[in-house]
């Protein structure tokens, strides 16, 4: 039993090679394209564009530079709102976890606020911040900030009491226990929060662009949707899906890198 018995590793039967997964995903994509194509033929009134029409529309949007402008505008809203959310939520969640009084005081408000549909705040935000960039960024911020606070806070709260006692027994002080035991233990939770926040942030980016000054990808969505230019509309939807995949996969990669010790 020298090197064996790695706790928590997958059994051989569970193991699927990276290439197999990639192939299966590609095959599924093919299936989706096929279904899409079928649907484009049989759904009445040209409501669904064919893959080819969509591709043509994408090329035109790209050539005209409209696609790039929209992506740039949306990413500016999304990126700034999301980064601001992370910059506020992680320290706040850590403080709430580290200082029990603060956590117990604030948690009920955090939960209340995160249960309130954030769309409810949009009129207020518009009154306060107008229809410009600040308002959009704030709508993204508001969506992304809650899951990051809640998960960071939970990560600190669930710190392994046995490990903390071990650290105390070797004479480690509060600061060292927090930075070397509690914080690394909370990291997977923080990343889950960041991932949820990224998803909600993207949704709110589009919501913000629909409700405030029409612009970015959300703006194009509204324009093409209202005028039944379904091929262009599909290009935007697929772009949003692509951004979502890229962001969450990037965070998953970070998570894997940080969690190398698990294997």
């Amino acid at each position, binding site marked *: 039993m020298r090197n064996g018995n790695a706790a928590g590793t997958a059994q051989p039967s569970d193991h699927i090679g990276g290439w197999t997964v990639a192939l299966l995903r590609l095959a599924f994509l093919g299936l989706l394209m096929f279904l899409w194509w079928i649907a484009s033929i049989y759904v009445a009134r040209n409501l669904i564009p064919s893959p080819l029409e969509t591709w043509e529309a994408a090329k035109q949007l790209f050539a005209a530079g409209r696609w790039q402008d929209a992506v740039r505008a949306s990413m500016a809203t999304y990126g700034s709102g999301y980064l601001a959310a992370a910059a506020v939520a992680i320290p706040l969640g850590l403080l709430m976890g580290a200082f029990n009084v603060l956590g117990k005081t604030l948690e009920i408000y955090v939960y209340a606020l995160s249960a309130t549909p954030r769309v409810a705040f949009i009129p207020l935000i518009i009154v306060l911040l107008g229809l410009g960039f600040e308002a959009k960024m704030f709508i993204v911020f508001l969506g992304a900030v809650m899951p990051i606070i809640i998960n960071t806070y939970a990560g600190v709260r669930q710190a392994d009491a046995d*490990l903390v*006692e071990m650290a105390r027994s*070797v*004479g480690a002080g509060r600061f*060292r226990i927090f930075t070397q035991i509690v914080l*690394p233990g909370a990291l997977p939770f923080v990343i889950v929060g960041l991932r949820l926040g990224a998803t909600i942030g993207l949704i709110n980016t589009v919501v913000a662009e629909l409700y405030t000054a029409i612009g970015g990808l959300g703006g194009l969505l509204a324009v093409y949707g209202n005028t039944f230019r379904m091929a262009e509309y599909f290009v935007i939807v697929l772009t949003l899906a692509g951004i979502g995949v890229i962001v969450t996969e990037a965070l998953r990669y970070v998570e894997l890198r940080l969690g190398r010790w*698990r294997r």
Partner: protein
Amino acid sequence: MTSAPASRNLARARRSTGAPPQLVLDGVAKRFRRPDGTLITALDGVSLGVRDREFVALIGPSGCGKTTILRIANGLLRPDSGSVLLSNAPPEPGPGAGFVFQSFRLIPWATVRRNVEFALQELPLSRKERAERALHYIGLVGLSRFAESYPGQLSGGMSQRVALARALAVEPQILLMDEPFASLDAQTRELMQMELMSVWERQKAMVLFVTHSVDEAITLADKIVLMGSGQVLETIDVELERPRWTSALRSDRRFVELRDHLWHRIRELVLSDPQSDFYGRDLA
């Protein structure tokens, strides 16, 4: 790292106090408040001592206060009344004691070496000295090859050897061990006992060793302290020659008698304890 750590350690302890190290608990009482608000007496006037180089086993039914004694000896808890002195000073958590827990308590995201170094950070050592010291003790428990492995890659026995290395590496005056081998299989457990004995024979720190196992207590200890419901019931000096692994010794009349005696006392305690699952059962 070629100088014998044991002698260095003892020298340090003597220098700081002018006397050989020892642990003395005198009339220690400790109560806890349960979540429902009621008070529970974990220790009720416990007096016991561990002398320089002595190996003391603490045995008794679960819930009788053994872990609480170790926590108090480490300074993790303060007694409500009575006194605790480790080499004439109230114990503080830190490198004065090395704690080995039943569930290993290794930091899962840190390598074996970093786990051991974690305990060394309270000592005035340079980064390089820390790494050297950690590697020395990892070697001592036979895990040099695994210094850069993560705990998740180790078996239970190996994990407990890392925990032992971590406790030894601070070169403590006293080792506090809380059922350290209880979660290991019988084979590994016996090998770990031998490992511990070989280290202790060289190092000769004081050891306070909590166990459920009568055999383990007799095999390892100079002195066995039998506890029941927060009190010391009996203290027995084990005057069997070492090593005690031989089958001749295990069938020795003194070994067998001591074993029977302890076994019966513990069974009595468990059967008469209203908290126990076996309370009032007639298992004759």
